[in-house]
């Protein structure tokens, strides 16, 4: 093959984008935060505090109270009083006003909240700004609208709230997971004791401030910070009527065991190992973007991340070449830079876990590709990583890595794609790329996953339910379905 050699007369520009940092001063961080119980910030009876750090610099941001059992007891008692005396008897239309007010205040302070989310959690500022915050406000707005229409949500029955909800949320989307749980609970008439994740407590504390400023009656929303012990105290408290947990499948199983036989209602949103299926007739360049977004969005700290790529064998090599080239254009580094695509890993512990699983992939004979990018010297970072020659039996094809690591397998027929996609204990999400509409429906019928995205990935909307099959949990968040998790009813 003859090659025409390009000999440019004018030099090319190696264009480096100058750093464009969002200002950290937009968020005011106090030195020390108490617990938000009964409408005000109080010192913990435990007298214990723990530091929360910026994972991109490893520098401490603030000290946060660690709630002990006595503190959780106070929070649940406050929530119970608020439920009985104020929130449950209140007209839905009145409750809606408070939730709408919170939604608006979140929207008004969204720049500050985005900065804080990035500082405390490590996600790129452009994601916090363009994805997390609009969705957070959107969930509050959406559920505020349901508060006075609950009997229309479920026609023919008389719905009522459950009581006090104990909610434990993860560190990957601190504010969004708060919104997914708090907004429907409040709109339906429940009161809440919320336990944010140990590594990302700050934005929940700002929402507590917002709730106070919005005049939300004391005790309706309580925020108790802490680690696993605090979460266990919330989940195990005898006066909690409903437990909602998002996190690992291992902890979810413990909670399910602990709650078995109790009166408490439970919803769990757990891990995933989603299959992302690419057929030969897919729009390839958009599929590449979908795959990149599917696994590198939020550094892969996404329970529905498309972490197992299934590519039809006859396009495998071409697709992987395109993917590698695209990987090399990802901008990894300072999460506060507006041009950063992949930010910091949330914690040292998570970085160690990712490293351990990647090492296992190498040991088991998979082939690794990482782009030639320079990581910051301080902070927790991991290069975007691909594995090819992966077998279903490898740990990197089975276990949830929860990091920027993609395992690539191939398939020959649609049947084989379905079989491999479903061959996992998880069942949270899946993606299908093909130009053939009938094949999308055929696949969606057969994939055992709570969400199936077609020719797109990682799309969320307040009106759309989200949740898992199998060991990815049960119950749905978002949409009308999301109300079900916080209501029961009498037949009329």
């Amino acid at each position, binding site marked *: 093959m003859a090659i025409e050699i390009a000999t440019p007369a004018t030099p090319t520009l190696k264009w480096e984008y*100058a750093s464009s940092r969002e200002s950290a001063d937009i968020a005011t961080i106090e030195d020390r935060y108490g617990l938000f119980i009964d409408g005000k910030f109080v010192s913990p009876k435990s007298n214990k505090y723990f530091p929360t750090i910026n994972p991109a610099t490893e520098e401490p941001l603030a000290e946060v109270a660690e709630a002990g059992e006595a503190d959780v007891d106070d929070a649940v008692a406050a929530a119970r009083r608020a439920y009985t005396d104020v929130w449950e008897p209140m007209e839905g239309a009145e409750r809606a006003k408070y939730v709408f007010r919170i939604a608006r205040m979140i929207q008004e302070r969204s720049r500050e909240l985005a900065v804080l989310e990035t500082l405390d959690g490590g996600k790129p500022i452009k994601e916090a700004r363009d994805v997390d915050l609009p969705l957070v406000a959107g969930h509050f707005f959406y559920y505020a609208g349901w508060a006075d229409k609950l009997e229309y949500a479920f026609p023919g029955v008389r719905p009522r709230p459950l009581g006090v909800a104990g909610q434990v949320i993860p560190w990957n989307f601190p504010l969004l997971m708060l919104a997914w749980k708090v907004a429907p609970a409040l709109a339906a008439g429940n009161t809440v004791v919320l336990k944010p994740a140990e590594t990302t407590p700050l934005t929940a504390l700002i929402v507590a401030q917002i709730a106070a400023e919005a005049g939300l009656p004391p005790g309706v929303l309580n925020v108790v910070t802490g680690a696993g012990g605090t979460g266990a105290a919330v989940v195990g408290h005898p006066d909690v009527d409903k437990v909602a947990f998002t996190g690992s499948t291992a902890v979810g199983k413990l909670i399910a065991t602990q709650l078995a036989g109790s009166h408490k209602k439970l919803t769990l949103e757990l891990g995933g190992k989603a299959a992302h299926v690419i057929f030969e007739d897919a729009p390839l*360049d958009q599929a590449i973007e979908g795959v990149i977004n599917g696994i590198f969005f939020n550094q892969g700290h996404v329970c529905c991340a498309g972490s197992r790529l299934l590519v039809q064998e006859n396009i495998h090599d071409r697709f992987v070449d395109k993917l590698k080239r695209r990987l090399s254009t990802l901008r990894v580094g300072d999460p506060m830079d507006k041009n950063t695509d992949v930010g910091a890993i949330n914690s040292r512990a998570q970085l160690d876990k990712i490293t351990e699983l990647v090492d296992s992939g190498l040991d088991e004979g998979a082939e690794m590709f990482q782009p030639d990018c320079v990581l910051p010297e301080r902070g927790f970072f991991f290069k975007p990583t691909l594995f090819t020659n992966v077998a279903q039996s490898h740990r990197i094809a089975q276990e949830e890595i929860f990091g920027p690591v993609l395992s690539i397998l191939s398939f020959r027929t649609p049947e084989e794609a379905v079989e491999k996609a479903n061959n996992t204990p998880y069942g949270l999400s899946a993606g299908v790329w093909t130009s053939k509409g009938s094949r999308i429906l055929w696949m969606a019928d057969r994939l055992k996953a709570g969400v199936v995205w077609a020719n797109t990935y990682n799309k969320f909307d307040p009106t759309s339910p989200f949740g898992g099959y199998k060991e990815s949990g049960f119950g749905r968040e978002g949409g009308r379905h999301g109300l079900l998790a916080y209501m029961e009813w009498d037949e009329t």
Partner: protein
Amino acid sequence: MTLAPARTSILPDRITTPTLRSFLRSVPSVDEVGANERVAALSTRSIKRESKRAALDLITQMIDLTTLEGKDTPGKVAQMSAKAIRPDPLDPSVPSVAAVCVYPNMVKYAVAATEGSSVKVASVATYFPSGLVETDLKVEEVSRVVRLGADEVDMVIDRGAFLGGEYFKVFDEIRRVKDACGDAHLKVILETGELVTLDNVRQASLLAMAAGADFIKTSTGKVQPAATLPVTLVMLEAIRDFMDATGVMVGMKPAGGIRTAKDAIRYLVVLNETLGEAWMTPDWFRFGASTLLNDVLMQIRWLQTGRYSSPDYFTKD
């Protein structure tokens, strides 16, 4: 005439409308929602300070300064050419633009006005902008503008033939025009505003490149919409696929509707993150524009002084 072997390598052995049709059907489809999302994401890139200055200088050097009006005169072309050579009389550090782009009857004036400078003369041809005449006449016109001294020829494809499935007609016409160009560079205008779908844009891009285009170009500027970011992205992706398949590098020219430096920087970001550094030169990327230049000059002045100058400080030619 025969095609260079590198270009035939992605084509069927016998080039006919049916074989070209199967070739085009093998081009990957485009998901419009996904393409729009990609350019929206790239449009949030924040380009500041020294990276902005570097972009503005490069954009200036990439401009085909254009006048394509019925009222064009030798005087207008001469004045525009002076501006092309020295865009900012107050600031000699601002480089010349790439080319002036004119109608065939203005080529000789443009050649005279740019003599001795680095600015090239591009002529639209093939009975621009509609191109609704027989191929022989188009070829004759191309030969004439090349004889007059045009360094570059901007032709427009037969959109009706493409949409009607007469792929050989489109292909053969480009091939014959390329032949008539001799050493002049051929830019093939797809007129994407009339092709409408991104699938059509991608297929027409491949067809034009296989037939011999040195550059592919979005629009004549006479049809709305002219250049858009999603169309440009899809054409750049087609260029990448063509390079992978044949080893032949093809250039890109979005034209029409790009009026601000901010817009132009977005195109540059899409170029930089799709094809990369090798294409970041006027040899492989051009902007077809008439009013863009003054906004770029204004932004350069702003970066130098921290103040916006009045538009009266920039020449209108």
